[in-house]
Protein backbone atom coordinates (compact mmCIF):
# COMPACT_ATOMS: atom_id res chain seq x y z
CA UNK A 1 0.00 0.00 0.00
CA UNK A 2 1.93 3.05 -1.20
CA UNK A 3 -0.28 5.48 0.73
CA UNK A 4 0.77 3.95 4.05
CA UNK A 5 4.42 3.94 3.09
CA UNK A 6 4.20 7.59 2.11
CA UNK A 7 2.73 8.88 5.30
CA UNK A 8 4.38 6.67 7.87
CA UNK A 9 8.04 6.97 7.11
CA UNK A 10 9.96 7.67 10.33
CA UNK A 11 9.84 11.32 11.17
CA UNK A 12 6.91 12.12 8.95
CA UNK A 13 4.10 13.68 10.96
CA UNK A 14 0.99 11.57 11.09
CA UNK A 15 -2.28 12.73 12.55
CA UNK A 16 -2.66 9.83 14.94
CA UNK A 17 -6.00 11.02 16.25
CA UNK A 18 -7.43 10.89 12.73
CA UNK A 19 -5.96 7.46 12.11
CA UNK A 20 -7.38 6.17 15.39
CA UNK A 21 -10.77 7.62 14.52
CA UNK A 22 -10.69 5.85 11.16
CA UNK A 23 -9.76 2.54 12.76
CA UNK A 24 -12.56 2.95 15.27
CA UNK A 25 -14.92 3.69 12.40
CA UNK A 26 -14.09 0.30 10.95
CA UNK A 27 -11.11 0.87 8.67
CA UNK A 28 -9.05 -1.91 10.17
CA UNK A 29 -6.29 -1.64 7.58
CA UNK A 30 -5.34 1.81 8.87
CA UNK A 31 -4.19 0.22 12.09
CA UNK A 32 -1.08 -0.79 10.16
CA UNK A 33 -0.10 2.89 10.05
CA UNK A 34 0.08 2.93 13.83
CA UNK A 35 1.92 -0.39 13.92
CA UNK A 36 4.50 0.81 11.43
CA UNK A 37 5.00 4.07 13.29
CA UNK A 38 5.60 2.61 16.76
CA UNK A 39 7.00 -0.79 15.94
CA UNK A 40 10.69 0.09 16.33
CA UNK A 41 10.16 1.91 19.64
CA UNK A 42 8.17 -0.96 21.08
CA UNK A 43 10.71 -3.48 19.85
CA UNK A 44 13.53 -1.52 21.51
CA UNK A 45 11.61 -1.28 24.75
CA UNK A 46 10.70 -4.97 24.80
CA UNK A 47 14.28 -5.91 23.93
CA UNK A 48 15.54 -4.16 27.04
CA UNK A 49 12.67 -5.28 29.19
CA UNK A 50 12.96 -8.98 28.40
CA UNK A 51 16.07 -11.06 28.81
CA UNK A 52 14.94 -13.65 26.29
CA UNK A 53 15.37 -12.69 22.65
CA UNK A 54 12.68 -15.07 21.46
CA UNK A 55 10.03 -13.47 23.62
CA UNK A 56 10.56 -9.95 22.32
CA UNK A 57 8.61 -10.42 19.09
CA UNK A 58 5.83 -12.15 20.98
CA UNK A 59 5.56 -9.28 23.45
CA UNK A 60 5.46 -6.68 20.66
CA UNK A 61 2.77 -8.57 18.80
CA UNK A 62 0.66 -9.03 21.90
CA UNK A 63 1.02 -5.34 22.67
CA UNK A 64 -0.33 -4.27 19.29
CA UNK A 65 -3.19 -6.75 19.38
CA UNK A 66 -4.13 -5.62 22.88
CA UNK A 67 -3.86 -1.98 21.78
CA UNK A 68 -6.26 -2.65 18.91
CA UNK A 69 -8.64 -4.38 21.27
CA UNK A 70 -8.60 -1.43 23.70
CA UNK A 71 -8.35 1.37 21.15
CA UNK A 72 -11.80 2.60 22.10
CA UNK A 73 -10.52 3.30 25.61
CA UNK A 74 -7.70 5.56 24.44
CA UNK A 75 -8.82 8.99 25.59
CA UNK A 76 -5.91 11.05 24.31
CA UNK A 77 -4.88 12.35 27.73
CA UNK A 78 -1.38 10.94 27.24
CA UNK A 79 0.48 10.55 23.97
CA UNK A 80 -0.42 7.45 21.99
CA UNK A 81 3.13 6.13 22.38
CA UNK A 82 2.96 6.49 26.16
CA UNK A 83 -0.32 4.62 26.16
CA UNK A 84 1.21 1.89 23.99
CA UNK A 85 4.24 1.63 26.27
CA UNK A 86 1.92 1.18 29.24
CA UNK A 87 0.37 -1.81 27.46
CA UNK A 88 3.83 -3.05 26.52
CA UNK A 89 4.89 -3.05 30.17
CA UNK A 90 1.97 -5.30 31.07
CA UNK A 91 2.48 -7.60 28.11
CA UNK A 92 6.19 -7.94 28.84
CA UNK A 93 5.34 -8.95 32.39
CA UNK A 94 2.83 -11.49 31.11
CA UNK A 95 5.38 -12.91 28.67
CA UNK A 96 7.97 -13.05 31.43
CA UNK A 97 5.61 -14.88 33.75
CA UNK A 98 4.86 -17.43 31.07
CA UNK A 99 8.57 -17.81 30.33
CA UNK A 100 9.24 -18.56 33.99
CA UNK A 101 6.46 -21.11 34.02
CA UNK A 102 7.75 -22.76 30.85
CA UNK A 103 11.27 -22.75 32.20
CA UNK A 104 10.30 -25.07 35.02
CA UNK A 105 11.41 -28.21 33.17
CA UNK A 106 14.00 -30.74 34.15
CA UNK A 107 17.52 -30.49 32.75
CA UNK A 108 17.11 -33.82 30.97
CA UNK A 109 14.47 -32.28 28.72
CA UNK A 110 16.78 -29.49 27.57
CA UNK A 111 19.06 -30.20 24.59
CA UNK A 112 22.77 -29.83 25.32
CA UNK A 113 23.35 -27.09 22.76
CA UNK A 114 20.75 -24.73 24.18
CA UNK A 115 22.33 -24.53 27.63
CA UNK A 116 24.36 -21.36 28.34
CA UNK A 117 28.08 -21.79 28.23
CA UNK A 118 30.42 -20.57 30.95
CA UNK A 119 33.41 -20.66 28.65
CA UNK A 120 32.93 -17.05 27.47
CA UNK A 121 34.04 -14.62 30.18
CA UNK A 122 31.70 -11.80 31.02
CA UNK A 123 34.20 -9.14 30.00
CA UNK A 124 34.40 -10.44 26.45
CA UNK A 125 30.70 -10.42 25.83
CA UNK A 126 29.17 -7.77 23.65
CA UNK A 127 28.51 -4.64 25.67
CA UNK A 128 24.79 -4.15 24.83
CA UNK A 129 24.11 -7.76 25.71
CA UNK A 130 25.88 -7.34 29.02
CA UNK A 131 24.00 -4.19 29.86
CA UNK A 132 20.79 -5.90 28.92
CA UNK A 133 21.65 -8.77 31.21
CA UNK A 134 22.21 -6.38 34.06
CA UNK A 135 18.98 -4.57 33.38
CA UNK A 136 17.20 -7.89 33.35
CA UNK A 137 18.54 -8.56 36.85
CA UNK A 138 16.86 -5.47 38.23
CA UNK A 139 13.53 -5.80 40.05
CA UNK A 140 10.58 -5.48 37.70
CA UNK A 141 9.46 -2.00 38.77
CA UNK A 142 12.96 -0.53 38.69
CA UNK A 143 13.64 -2.08 35.29
CA UNK A 144 10.41 -0.71 33.85
CA UNK A 145 11.00 2.80 35.16
CA UNK A 146 14.60 2.78 33.96
CA UNK A 147 13.64 1.61 30.48
CA UNK A 148 10.78 4.04 30.15
CA UNK A 149 12.98 6.90 31.29
CA UNK A 150 16.22 6.20 29.47
CA UNK A 151 15.17 4.41 26.34
CA UNK A 152 11.63 5.56 25.74
CA UNK A 153 12.47 9.07 26.98
CA UNK A 154 9.27 9.53 28.95
CA UNK A 155 9.13 12.17 31.69
CA UNK A 156 8.69 10.86 35.23
CA UNK A 157 5.18 12.27 35.35
CA UNK A 158 4.06 10.08 32.46
CA UNK A 159 5.96 7.07 33.77
CA UNK A 160 4.17 7.47 37.08
CA UNK A 161 0.80 7.71 35.34
CA UNK A 162 1.50 4.65 33.20
CA UNK A 163 2.64 2.63 36.20
CA UNK A 164 0.00 3.81 38.62
CA UNK A 165 2.54 5.12 41.12
CA UNK A 166 3.51 8.57 42.35
CA UNK A 167 6.09 10.66 40.55
CA UNK A 168 8.40 10.50 43.56
CA UNK A 169 8.09 6.71 43.66
CA UNK A 170 9.12 6.59 39.99
CA UNK A 171 12.16 8.74 40.74
CA UNK A 172 13.15 6.64 43.72
CA UNK A 173 12.88 3.46 41.65
CA UNK A 174 15.04 5.04 38.98
CA UNK A 175 17.56 6.16 41.60
CA UNK A 176 17.99 2.67 43.02
CA UNK A 177 18.11 1.07 39.58
CA UNK A 178 21.00 3.32 38.58
CA UNK A 179 22.69 2.74 41.91
CA UNK A 180 22.59 -1.02 41.41
CA UNK A 181 23.85 -0.78 37.85
CA UNK A 182 26.68 1.41 39.03
CA UNK A 183 27.58 -1.16 41.64
CA UNK A 184 27.67 -3.95 39.06
CA UNK A 185 29.76 -1.81 36.75
CA UNK A 186 32.24 -1.21 39.55
CA UNK A 187 32.38 -4.89 40.44
CA UNK A 188 33.04 -5.76 36.85
CA UNK A 189 35.83 -3.20 36.58
CA UNK A 190 37.60 -4.34 39.73
Amino acid at each position, binding site marked *: MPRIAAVTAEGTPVDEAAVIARVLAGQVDDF*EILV*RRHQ*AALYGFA*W*RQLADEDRVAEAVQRTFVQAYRSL*GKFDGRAAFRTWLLGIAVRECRAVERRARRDAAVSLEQVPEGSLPSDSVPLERQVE*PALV*RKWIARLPSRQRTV*LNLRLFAGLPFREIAAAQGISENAAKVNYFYAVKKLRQW*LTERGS
Partner: protein
Amino acid sequence: MADRARFVTSQRGGRTGRTLPLRRAWHRWQCWRLRVHLVDCAEGELAGRLRLRVERHLALCPECDRSAADLRAVAALLRGVRAPALTEAEAVRQRQEVMRAVRAMERVPGRTANCARRAFGWAPAVAAAAAAVWLATRVPQQRAPAQPGDGQAMGEVAAAVVGEGAEVARASRPLAAVEVPVAELAWWEPELELEPIEPSADEVPVEEMAGWIAGDTA
Protein backbone atom coordinates in the same frame (compact mmCIF):
# COMPACT_ATOMS: atom_id res chain seq x y z
CA MET B 1 21.63 17.49 77.07
CA ALA B 2 24.94 15.76 77.06
CA ASP B 3 24.28 14.73 73.48
CA ARG B 4 23.50 18.31 72.59
CA ALA B 5 26.73 19.50 74.18
CA ARG B 6 28.75 16.85 72.38
CA PHE B 7 26.96 17.73 69.13
CA VAL B 8 27.89 21.40 69.51
CA THR B 9 31.45 20.49 70.42
CA SER B 10 31.71 18.31 67.39
CA GLN B 11 30.25 21.04 65.18
CA ARG B 12 32.89 23.45 66.48
CA GLY B 13 35.68 21.00 65.80
CA GLY B 14 36.00 19.95 69.41
CA ARG B 15 38.43 17.49 70.82
CA THR B 16 36.52 14.34 70.00
CA GLY B 17 36.06 15.09 66.30
CA ARG B 18 33.65 12.15 66.05
CA THR B 19 30.34 12.19 64.23
CA LEU B 20 27.69 11.80 66.84
CA PRO B 21 24.62 9.60 66.43
CA LEU B 22 22.28 12.57 66.35
CA ARG B 23 24.21 14.35 63.67
CA ARG B 24 24.64 11.17 61.68
CA ALA B 25 20.92 10.48 61.84
CA TRP B 26 20.14 14.02 60.72
CA HIS B 27 22.54 13.70 57.84
CA ARG B 28 21.11 10.33 56.78
CA TRP B 29 17.65 11.77 56.90
CA GLN B 30 18.69 14.63 54.65
CA CYS B 31 20.26 12.16 52.18
CA TRP B 32 17.10 10.09 52.21
CA ARG B 33 14.92 13.12 51.64
CA LEU B 34 16.99 14.54 48.82
CA ARG B 35 17.50 11.35 46.83
CA VAL B 36 14.39 12.14 44.79
CA HIS B 37 15.75 15.56 43.93
CA LEU B 38 19.14 14.08 43.08
CA VAL B 39 17.52 12.49 40.04
CA ASP B 40 16.17 15.85 38.90
CA CYS B 41 19.49 17.51 39.70
CA ALA B 42 21.40 14.97 37.60
CA GLU B 43 19.00 15.56 34.73
CA GLY B 44 19.35 19.32 35.10
CA GLU B 45 15.65 19.73 35.84
CA LEU B 46 16.01 21.40 39.21
CA ALA B 47 15.67 25.12 39.70
CA GLY B 48 15.24 27.78 42.35
CA ARG B 49 15.70 27.33 46.07
CA LEU B 50 15.45 23.56 45.86
CA ARG B 51 18.42 23.47 43.53
CA LEU B 52 20.45 25.60 45.93
CA ARG B 53 19.49 23.34 48.79
CA VAL B 54 20.50 20.19 46.91
CA GLU B 55 23.76 21.73 45.77
CA ARG B 56 24.57 22.80 49.32
CA HIS B 57 23.93 19.26 50.48
CA LEU B 58 26.08 17.83 47.70
CA ALA B 59 28.91 20.11 48.72
CA LEU B 60 28.79 18.67 52.24
CA CYS B 61 27.98 15.03 51.44
CA PRO B 62 30.50 13.15 49.30
CA GLU B 63 28.25 10.11 49.15
CA CYS B 64 25.33 11.98 47.60
CA ASP B 65 27.72 13.84 45.34
CA ARG B 66 28.99 10.50 44.07
CA SER B 67 25.41 9.29 43.61
CA ALA B 68 24.60 12.35 41.51
CA ALA B 69 27.68 11.78 39.40
CA ASP B 70 26.71 8.11 39.02
CA LEU B 71 23.25 9.07 37.89
CA ARG B 72 24.71 11.22 35.15
CA ALA B 73 27.39 8.72 34.10
CA VAL B 74 25.27 5.59 34.11
CA ALA B 75 22.42 7.32 32.32
CA ALA B 76 24.83 8.50 29.61
CA LEU B 77 26.31 5.01 29.34
CA LEU B 78 22.94 3.31 29.09
CA ARG B 79 21.59 5.80 26.59
CA GLY B 80 24.52 4.88 24.36
CA VAL B 81 23.50 1.24 24.33
CA ARG B 82 21.31 0.69 21.33
CA ALA B 83 18.99 -2.22 20.84
CA PRO B 84 19.71 -4.16 17.65
CA ALA B 85 17.77 -2.63 14.80
CA LEU B 86 14.76 -4.54 13.61
CA THR B 87 15.50 -5.87 10.14
CA GLU B 88 13.07 -4.89 7.41
CA ALA B 89 12.10 -8.50 6.75
CA GLU B 90 11.46 -9.10 10.42
CA ALA B 91 9.48 -5.87 10.71
CA VAL B 92 7.29 -6.78 7.74
CA ARG B 93 6.71 -10.27 9.09
CA GLN B 94 5.76 -8.86 12.48
CA ARG B 95 3.35 -6.34 10.97
CA GLN B 96 1.71 -9.03 8.89
CA GLU B 97 1.20 -11.17 11.96
CA VAL B 98 -0.28 -8.29 13.90
CA MET B 99 -2.65 -7.37 11.09
CA ARG B 100 -3.65 -10.99 10.62
CA ALA B 101 -4.52 -11.24 14.30
CA VAL B 102 -6.38 -7.92 14.20
CA ARG B 103 -8.44 -8.87 11.15
CA ALA B 104 -9.26 -12.21 12.73
CA MET B 105 -11.12 -10.35 15.47
CA GLU B 106 -13.71 -9.26 12.90
CA ARG B 107 -15.11 -6.44 14.93
CA VAL B 108 -14.59 -2.79 15.51
CA PRO B 109 -12.18 -2.11 18.39
CA GLY B 110 -13.65 -0.75 21.55
CA ARG B 111 -17.06 -2.30 20.92
CA THR B 112 -16.41 -4.89 23.55
CA ALA B 113 -18.50 -6.30 26.32
CA ASN B 114 -17.70 -3.22 28.36
CA CYS B 115 -19.22 -1.02 25.70
CA ALA B 116 -22.27 -3.24 25.56
CA ARG B 117 -22.55 -2.95 29.31
CA ARG B 118 -22.26 0.80 29.03
CA ALA B 119 -24.87 0.91 26.25
CA PHE B 120 -27.45 -1.31 27.93
CA GLY B 121 -26.59 -0.78 31.55
CA TRP B 122 -29.87 1.03 32.10
CA ALA B 123 -31.96 -2.02 31.13
CA PRO B 124 -32.27 -3.61 34.63
CA ALA B 125 -33.30 -0.28 36.18
CA VAL B 126 -35.95 0.26 33.51
CA ALA B 127 -37.24 -3.30 34.02
CA ALA B 128 -37.56 -2.70 37.76
CA ALA B 129 -39.37 0.57 37.20
CA ALA B 130 -41.74 -1.10 34.72
CA ALA B 131 -42.48 -3.82 37.27
CA ALA B 132 -43.29 -1.19 39.86
CA VAL B 133 -45.63 0.62 37.48
CA TRP B 134 -47.32 -2.66 36.58
CA LEU B 135 -47.89 -3.39 40.25
CA ALA B 136 -49.34 0.03 40.81
CA THR B 137 -51.69 -0.10 37.80
CA ARG B 138 -52.87 -3.63 38.59
CA VAL B 139 -55.05 -2.20 41.40
CA PRO B 140 -58.72 -2.02 40.31
CA GLN B 141 -60.40 1.30 39.91
CA GLN B 142 -63.00 0.88 42.74
CA ARG B 143 -61.30 1.52 46.03
CA ALA B 144 -62.32 1.47 49.62
CA PRO B 145 -61.68 4.73 51.42
CA ALA B 146 -58.04 4.86 52.19
CA GLN B 147 -57.10 4.30 55.80
CA PRO B 148 -54.25 6.29 57.24
CA GLY B 149 -51.07 4.27 56.80
CA ASP B 150 -52.45 1.89 54.16
CA GLY B 151 -50.60 3.52 51.34
CA GLN B 152 -47.37 3.53 53.26
CA ALA B 153 -47.73 -0.13 54.11
CA MET B 154 -48.37 -1.08 50.50
CA GLY B 155 -45.48 1.04 49.41
CA GLU B 156 -43.24 -0.96 51.69
CA VAL B 157 -44.58 -4.23 50.32
CA ALA B 158 -43.95 -3.04 46.79
CA ALA B 159 -40.46 -1.99 47.71
CA ALA B 160 -39.78 -5.40 49.17
CA VAL B 161 -41.06 -7.12 46.03
CA VAL B 162 -39.38 -5.15 43.30
CA GLY B 163 -36.65 -3.38 45.20
CA GLU B 164 -35.15 -0.45 43.44
CA GLY B 165 -37.89 -0.09 40.86
CA ALA B 166 -40.56 0.27 43.53
CA GLU B 167 -38.45 2.86 45.27
CA VAL B 168 -38.43 4.81 42.04
CA ALA B 169 -42.20 4.44 41.73
CA ARG B 170 -42.76 5.55 45.31
CA ALA B 171 -40.52 8.51 44.88
CA SER B 172 -42.19 9.64 41.69
CA ARG B 173 -45.83 9.05 42.65
CA PRO B 174 -47.95 10.17 45.59
CA LEU B 175 -48.49 7.49 48.21
CA ALA B 176 -52.25 7.37 47.57
CA ALA B 177 -51.58 5.95 44.12
CA VAL B 178 -50.51 2.61 45.56
CA GLU B 179 -53.27 2.30 48.15
CA VAL B 180 -55.20 -0.93 47.81
CA PRO B 181 -58.85 -1.49 48.76
CA VAL B 182 -59.30 -3.87 51.66
CA ALA B 183 -61.20 -6.36 49.52
CA GLU B 184 -58.16 -6.70 47.27
CA LEU B 185 -55.96 -7.81 50.13
CA ALA B 186 -57.01 -11.36 49.30
CA TRP B 187 -54.81 -11.03 46.26
CA TRP B 188 -51.78 -10.42 48.47
CA GLU B 189 -52.71 -13.13 50.96
CA PRO B 190 -54.78 -15.77 49.10
CA GLU B 191 -55.44 -17.81 52.26
CA LEU B 192 -57.35 -14.88 53.75
CA GLU B 193 -60.93 -15.62 52.71
CA LEU B 194 -63.83 -13.75 54.26
CA GLU B 195 -66.69 -16.12 55.07
CA PRO B 196 -70.29 -14.90 55.31
CA ILE B 197 -71.44 -14.69 58.91
CA GLU B 198 -74.76 -16.34 59.71
CA PRO B 199 -77.04 -14.16 61.90
CA SER B 200 -77.55 -15.76 65.32
CA ALA B 201 -80.76 -15.87 67.36
CA ASP B 202 -79.45 -13.48 69.98
CA GLU B 203 -78.79 -10.77 67.47
CA VAL B 204 -81.03 -7.73 67.61
CA PRO B 205 -82.41 -6.63 64.23
CA VAL B 206 -81.27 -3.26 63.05
CA GLU B 207 -84.84 -1.92 62.89
CA GLU B 208 -85.37 -2.65 66.60
CA MET B 209 -82.15 -0.89 67.47
CA ALA B 210 -83.37 2.13 65.50
CA GLY B 211 -86.55 2.03 67.59
CA TRP B 212 -84.44 2.10 70.79
CA ILE B 213 -82.53 5.11 69.59
CA ALA B 214 -85.77 6.90 68.59
CA GLY B 215 -87.27 6.09 72.04
CA ASP B 216 -84.25 7.53 73.83
CA THR B 217 -84.34 10.71 71.86
CA ALA B 218 -88.05 11.00 72.46
